């Protein structure tokens, strides 16, 4: 008798994604699906609106990463209106974006993904949360996490107004600059975040790398996929989150594509499945070969470790050293371990902290020349940034007045949707054996998608904010024979 297990997050922010696991007669996993019946129609909603509104509308897609949408949209408007921002404007944008990456990455590591390692993957669900993390690491550290987050948000708010509704990026520049007093204030934040980044990586070393069980888990084949990897890189092929070209490497780490944002349609296509609303982007020149990994696969991952794999290194000294140590420990580059995304997240946060300091030490950052007014007729634009959870593509077309006639967005979780589906199935097959299903095992399946920091809802909040997971085990007639809730 086959069984069916459903992990169904029912609050809105988590979206309505769910995991369905089908067991065979012997209680082993036959198939597992990651399904996302997400909100629809955003692109259509935008049609006919003035293109200049997009940096204000697109952050409302998601209350978790508004700055990423704002920045991708702003860059798209540069391209659409054919205007190059002054150097100071680019630096100010990257400053704001670096602050955003830091706060978002640490939020995920300490509060969302961290409990899996800091508290333990099979710890009782009631302890596997931020309070459990605080109990392990202490109040002082939790207070530092809050401080990092607040100071980074202060930079964003000073420059862009409310974090959730940024008003900053304009076609050809930004709405305001900074003065010397603000530069000095922000510099203190940058220095604090660099110190914190060292501490966070040390903590990861103490809690995860010194625990052989955790290292085994990170390196466990149940959490590994040999896929292609993608990320923005600068002229030296170093990772960059704000600008550059998209570089793609194959599972062996060899470069197989490098393209400007405007060329993405030549390289990326989207596959659809009848059982999910989310699309499954793949490498067009390889083609869709299904939910498979290996050298012939068209699946490409876009996430912190994917970016590190796609780049030749990090452009700042501390992050480069951390990057090298990470790959040394993981057994070389590229690394295919999904759970190592958490580690890469900390390396990226360190880079962002150092980059923030570099930008603030550049005398040009206080320049008043932060906007070029567009003079050309708008037509078509593409903007790409690296959102915390992966590559984010905005693509607009407009009429000669700048009114939108076509909008296409590919968000990071789109890129990762096929890998997430594969990771969930592989983890389920690796963890659930002989029909034994318990809360700890199900959490170890969830860990496979939590590592991607998925953003599947495109809603903005949820009340009461809890995440009631329901795991249902059904027999072949559909009758629920067991239910696990938390």
């Amino acid at each position, binding site marked *: 008798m086959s069984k069916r297990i459903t992990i169904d997050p029912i609050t809105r922010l988590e979206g309505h994604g769910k995991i369905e696991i089908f067991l065979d007669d012997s209680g082993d996993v036959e198939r597992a699906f990651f399904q996302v019946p997400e909100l629809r129609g955003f692109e259509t909603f935008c049609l006919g609106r003035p293109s200049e509104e997009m940096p204000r509308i697109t952050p409302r897609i998601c209350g978790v990463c508004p700055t990423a949408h704002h920045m991708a949209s702003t860059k798209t408007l540069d391209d659409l209106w054919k205007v190059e921002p002054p150097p100071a404007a680019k630096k100010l944008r990257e400053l704001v974006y670096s602050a955003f990456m830091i706060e978002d990455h640490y939020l995920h590591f300490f509060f969302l993904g961290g409990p899996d390692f800091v508290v333990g993957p099979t710890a009782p669900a009631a302890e596997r949360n931020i309070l459990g993390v605080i109990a392990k690491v202490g109040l002082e550290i939790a207070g530092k996490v809050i401080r990092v987050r607040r100071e980074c948000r202060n930079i964003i708010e000073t420059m862009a107004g409310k974090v959730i509704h940024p008003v900053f990026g304009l076609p050809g520049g930004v709405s305001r600059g900074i003065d010397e007093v603000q530069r000095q204030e922000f510099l203190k934040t940058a220095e604090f975040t660099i110190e914190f980044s060292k501490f966070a990586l040390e903590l990861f070393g103490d809690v995860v790398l010194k625990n052989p069980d955790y290292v085994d888990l990170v390196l466990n084949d149940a959490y590994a996929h040999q896929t292609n990897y993608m990320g923005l890189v600068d002229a030296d092929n170093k990772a960059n989150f704000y600008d550059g070209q998209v570089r793609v490497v194959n599972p062996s780490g060899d470069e197989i594509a490098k393209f400007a944002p405007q060329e993405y349609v030549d390289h990326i296509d989207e596959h659809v499945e009848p059982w999910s609303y989310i699309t499954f982007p793949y490498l067009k020149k390889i083609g869709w070969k299904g939910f498979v990994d290996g050298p012939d696969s068209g699946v490409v991952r876009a996430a912190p470790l994917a970016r590190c794999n796609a780049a030749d290194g990090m452009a700042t000294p501390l992050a480069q050293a951390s990057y090298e140590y990470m790959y040394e420990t993981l057994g070389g580059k590229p690394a295919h371990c999904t759970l190592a995304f958490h580690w890469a997240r900390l390396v990226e946060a360190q880079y962002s902290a150092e980059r923030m300091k570099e930008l603030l030490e550049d005398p040009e950052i206080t320049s008043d020349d932060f906007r070029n007014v567009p003079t050309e007729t708008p037509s078509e634009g593409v903007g790409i940034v690296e959102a915390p959870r992966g590559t984010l593509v905005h693509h607009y077309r407009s009429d000669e007045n700048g009114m939108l006639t076509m909008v296409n967005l590919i968000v990071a979780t789109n890129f990762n949707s096929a890998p997430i589906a594969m990771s969930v199935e592989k983890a389920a097959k690796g963890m659930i054996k002989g029909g034994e299903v318990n809360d700890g095992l199900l959490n170890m399946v969830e860990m496979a998608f939590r590592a991607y920091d*998925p953003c599947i809802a495109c809603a903005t909040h949820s009340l009461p904010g809890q995440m009631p997971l329901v795991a249902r085990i059904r027999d072949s007639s559909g009758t629920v024979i067991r239910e696990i809730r938390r």
Partner: protein
Amino acid sequence: MSCPNESILLLALGNDIIGDDGVALEAAGALRETFGDQLDVLETTEAGLGLIDILEPYNRVLLLDSIEIGDMPAGTIREFSREDFHKVLGQSPHYAGLPEVIALAHKLGINFPSEFRVLAMKIDFQEEFRQGLSYDIQQALPDYIKQAEKILSQWIRKSARNITN
């Protein structure tokens, strides 16, 4: 507000481009007209830990939001207190919710409003991005506003008495 310890915030959460998810924002707009400068009104799509920063300076907070969970018909209004959020239920893949926010503020000694109430309206799952409220939610909106008015009026009277004393 003249006295920080008596400060009141009406906090409306929602998204005005996801149909009925914007019901709290609509209500807040009407309540701003009623109460003027007697309290602070904030409409936001902010979520998770960002709420700590918003709530910290206030003594009394009424939070308006929508909910999709439960078997109630759309338009049903439910009231919650701080105690209803005491239990942190689990780990989120992507987000920290109100229970985590309350617990974290308590643990770290961050000020949290001494009076904290939530008025939530049940809405159906919103499938598409769109502006405007559905018929059922429009019909329920006046009652929603009335219930919020009652709570806020009580708090304003209480604050006035405390300041006088």
